[in-house]
């Protein structure tokens, strides 16, 4: 029987009512009396020296309040990077300065040079056109391998080269891996590109800075996934505003997908300028600006080699990846190709020896950082592609080759430093065979043939590390932040509850799912519980939402706080019931004395806490509000098996996805409907990456796909009806809910399934095609088919 409330119920997403009826309150809906508007004059070339900026005519234009340039930010901090990676030789990465407005040089198309603050946006734009810029163009650094070749133009003159770091993991394994590959019975090699993506949340970024002249307090309203992180980074590192004088509010946020994690120059600008001009300053990104200023995702060039013994057991894996950082280091950029990528290279397999080399490279392109999955899709894609290629080279069934090499015993310590707590990869593969009807493939293949279409089946597995992250561990790895989460459970006098969480919902459904957990714990109706988030003034210091961490880490903090509340409430109940605390039980919103019919309702206890007339005041304080911080002691490891069936039109190369099935193990599940929705969204983005999306640069550093006319987003008719299942559940062993996280799985697991399927279709048609780089556009598939 499906439950109708609490953990396991598919409660309807309460937030959707306001989102779908246009009543959400987004940052752009915030307008403050007397506000001004800023327009950023951005570089239209990829690399140039700024010889001069003449704002004299622009200054005199109607409505101009003030025009800022890089010179106004002398002595102001640089946009900080939140993670320091140490290279193979024990040296810290090269870390360039990132000024709020360009100083001396522009380094990518979209780099902001001037900021025009005016009475209206149109006046700001008019004035920006009157600014005279003298830019002396320099050669653009675009190709990563050329960027690190001797004699390349440097993106940053004060660095020794364009190499941010050369990372080896696990460095001690390097020689052993080389040896194992040399002596292997078979080695499969694959070179591939993980295409650069633009996140494209529906809501573009917005920032409104406000400064209170009376108190010297600042408020920044911003489209962020983690307002506390922005407060810390911007306050402490850029503007020097102490946290108690700075409030950051991220109200309803219309999608983030990672790109709204980071601290951006525009946020710092609006906050800084609000005091400088003595008025609120608002910036709303246009979609065109988003393409050239939101951090991009992926962009790896990889060579991967898988060694097998004569029995087809995986013996070693070696990868070499060039990872694009873009022109500056975005907040978490250095950690993505390293700790979120290298540590996942074992995948679902017991490969004993692994060595991952990553060269992070500066180029004259938009900074690259986390995008849904962040590092883990890149790891999964190369691994699952090379395993598939190996199966084809060896003439063995790709599913059997995977099964043969599955990790089956848990906990399992991988050779890449992480320890998987639980999992059952055969179970998800079995489930996949069922929901994907794998045994019916041959019949469908025949049917496609009759219609003149090539059909292919692609299967793959994935593992990811979510629930980011144990603070002491990430600290050792170079994180400049802790990655715990916080929650305050505030019980009101009448028994309703407000939960202030450091997690941030920007589409995930926290306002629905989090109350389900509390409702289950106390036995009251979900409607009695409200989630408050997105404001540093109301929530305790939290780290925000990304890395599928909200329920696993934020939910755990909430559970811990609720436990404290319940313990205290039991004390009050024991007083009211004149019974020993140890005998008090809480069920269905009633405190009872075990073995008796004596009880007191939740609401009577909470009322007593705030109207403490009959109350043990000498033992406990009045009130019922508790805060907890939860720091996980491991990552969580969701896993699954995906399959995709495609048809390829042999005349045009067009790929259509005929079916897609996903069997995931997310551990315990709070709201199955929301989980399905998260998987659906992830699959759409993964299919988008595989077939459609590509942020393409020309050799001059111009973005060729800088609007929806050329950047292909997946639409409803590009994706099939999905079969998703999450009934295989191996609960996480180390968090109180036993949950693992589901936000990124779809985007991580789906690209290799699509590419494997297309390669399968072409090989079945006798084409000698072993790989095509994403996106598999009709033109590319046709070219591959025709040699």
């Amino acid at each position: 029987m499906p439950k109708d409330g609490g953990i396991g119920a598919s409660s309807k997403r309460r937030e959707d009512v306001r989102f779908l009826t246009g009543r959400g309150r987004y940052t752009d809906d915030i307008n403050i009396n007397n506000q001004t508007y800023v327009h950023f004059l951005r570089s239209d070339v990829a690399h140039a020296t700024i010889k001069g900026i003449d704002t004299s005519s622009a200054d005199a234009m109607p409505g101009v309040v003030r025009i800022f340039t890089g010179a106004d930010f002398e002595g102001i901090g640089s946009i900080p990077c939140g993670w320091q990676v140490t290279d193979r030789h024990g040296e810290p990465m090269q870390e360039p300065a990132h000024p709020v407005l360009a100083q001396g040089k522009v380094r990518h198309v979209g780099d902001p040079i001037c900021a025009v603050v005016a009475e209206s946006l149109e006046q700001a734009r008019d004035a920006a056109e009157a600014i005279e810029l003298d830019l002396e163009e320099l050669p653009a650094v675009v190709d990563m391998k050329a960027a690190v070749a001797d004699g390349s133009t440097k993106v940053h003159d004060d660095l020794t080269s364009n190499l941010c770091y050369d990372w080896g993991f696990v460095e001690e394994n390097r020689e052993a891996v080389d040896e194992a590959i040399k002596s292997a019975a078979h080695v499969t090699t694959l070179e591939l590109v993980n295409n650069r993506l633009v996140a494209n949340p529906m809501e573009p970024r917005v920032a409104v800075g406000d400064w209170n002249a009376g108190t010297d307090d600042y408020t920044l309203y911003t489209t962020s996934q983690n307002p506390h992180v922005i407060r810390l980074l911007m306050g402490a590192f850029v503007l020097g505003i102490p946290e108690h004088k700075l409030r950051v509010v991220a109200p309803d946020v219309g999608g983030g997908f990672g790109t709204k994690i980071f601290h951006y120059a525009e946020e710092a600008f609006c906050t800084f300028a609000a005091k400088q001009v003595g008025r609120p300053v608002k910036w709303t990104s246009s979609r065109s600006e988003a393409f050239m200023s939101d951090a991009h995702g992926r962009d790896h060039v990889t060579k991967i080699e898988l060694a097998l013994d004569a029995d087809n057991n995986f013996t070693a894996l070696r990868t070499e990846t060039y990872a694009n950082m873009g022109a500056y280091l975005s907040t978490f950029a250095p950690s993505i190709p390293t700790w979120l990528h290298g540590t996942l290279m074992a995948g679902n397999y017991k490969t004993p020896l692994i060595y991952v080399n990553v060269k992070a490279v500066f180029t004259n392109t938009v900074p690259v950082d986390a995008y849904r999955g962040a590092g883990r899709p890149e790891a999964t894609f190369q691994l699952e592609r090379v395993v598939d290629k190996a199966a084809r080279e060896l003439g063995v069934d790709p599913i059997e080759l995977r099964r043969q090499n599955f990790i089956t015993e848990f906990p399992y310590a991988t050779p890449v430093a992480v320890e998987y707590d639980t999992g059952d990869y055969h179970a998800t593969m079995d489930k996949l065979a069922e929901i994907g009807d794998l045994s019916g493939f041959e019949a469908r293949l025949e049917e496609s043939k009759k219609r003149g279409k090539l059909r292919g089946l692609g299967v793959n597995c994935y593992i990811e590390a979510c629930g980011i992250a144990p603070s002491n561990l990430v600290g050792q790895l170079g994180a400049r932040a802790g990655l715990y989460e916080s929650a305050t459970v505030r019980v009101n006098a009448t028994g309703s509850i407000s939960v202030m969480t450091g997690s941030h919902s920007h589409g995930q459904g926290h306002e629905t799912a989090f109350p389900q957990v509390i409702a289950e714990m106390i036995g009251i109706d979900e409607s009695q519980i409200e989630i408050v988030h997105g404001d540093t003034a109301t929530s305790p210091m939290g780290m925000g939402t990304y890395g599928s961490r909200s329920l696993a880490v934020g939910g755990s903090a909430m559970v811990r706080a609720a436990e404290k509340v319940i313990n205290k409430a039991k004390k009050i109940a024991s007083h009211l019931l004149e019974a020993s605390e140890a005998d008090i039980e809480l069920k269905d919103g009633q405190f009872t004395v075990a073995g008796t019919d004596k009880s007191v309702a939740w609401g009577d206890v909470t009322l007593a806490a705030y109207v403490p007339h009959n109350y043990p005041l000498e033992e406990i304080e009045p009130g019922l509000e508790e805060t907890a911080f939860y720091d996980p002691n491991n990552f969580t490891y969701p896993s699954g098996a995906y399959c995709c069936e495609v048809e390829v039109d042999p005349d045009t190369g067009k790929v259509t996805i005929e079916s897609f099935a996903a069997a995931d193990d997310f551990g315990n599940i709070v709201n199955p409907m929301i989980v399905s929705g998260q998987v659906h969204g992830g699959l759409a983005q993964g299919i988008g990456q595989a077939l459609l999306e590509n942020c393409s640069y020309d050799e001059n550093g111009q973005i060729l796909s800088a609007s929806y006319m050329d950047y292909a987003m997946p639409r409803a008719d590009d994706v099939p009806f999905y079969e998703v299942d999450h009934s295989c559940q191996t609960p996480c062993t180390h968090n109180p809910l036993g949950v693992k996280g589901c936000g990124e799985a779809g985007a991580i697991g789906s690209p290799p399934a699509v590419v494997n399927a297309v390669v399968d279709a072409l090989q079945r048609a006798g084409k000698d095609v072993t790989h095509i780089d994403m996106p598999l556009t009709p033109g590319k598939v046709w070219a591959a088919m025709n040699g």
Partner: protein
Amino acid sequence: MYAFEFERPTTVDDAVKALASEDAQALGGGQTLIPTLKQRLAAPETLVSLGGIAEMKGVCIGDSGEVCIGGATSHATVAAEAGQYPALAELAAHIGDPAVRNRGTIGGSLANNDPSACYPAAALGSNATIITNKRDIAADDYFQGMFTTALEEGEIITEVRFPVPEKANYQKFVQPASRFALVGVFVAKYSDGVRVAVTGASEEGVHRWSEAEEALSADFSADAISGLSVPADGLIGDLHGTPEYRAHLVKVMTGRAVTASA
């Protein structure tokens, strides 16, 4: 957007007068022009909306059976009301999305002559007559290269007349991002011969494929063009397809259009 004056005349004459003023520009459905203005790539002093001119709207049947479409008729109206010419109605039904079809007009599309747009293929493939406030222009004379037409400054397309063929079909292979035509081929079989118009492919914009027309006039079947090939020279090469790929698609889409012709 830069500031502009806005006029909404109700007759063609008034529109022509309004367009005579310096830097005035006609506004059809705005589906091309408004995005251009938003990006500040155009700065007309005055926008003269053609949307209030009743005589420029609607679909009717002319004296010799041709389908006549007012220059300010929306794609959605053509899709719904040009049933006498099914291939044309079908083409209109697949332009853009519902918002674009409800706003965008045939006059705007033909005036703009985007090299990847659909209507130019139908007009050239049908040898339609483009009627302006000044003159009648045969489609063969009208299209003069991408974004270039025979229209003069201030000239308004008031109507487009399509002779109805025996059979016709439009095959559009969409560019995945914009969903304009990566290659679109319009094939129309008239009693005096077959016309084949290709959009999306050429740097010269919409054009006829005369070898295919000859072959198909002799034998209206997909087989008739199997021996032909399209040279890649002068074809568009971009993110979405090489000239060679487009050349290949022209032939594939032509064959499909012939097969699908009804």
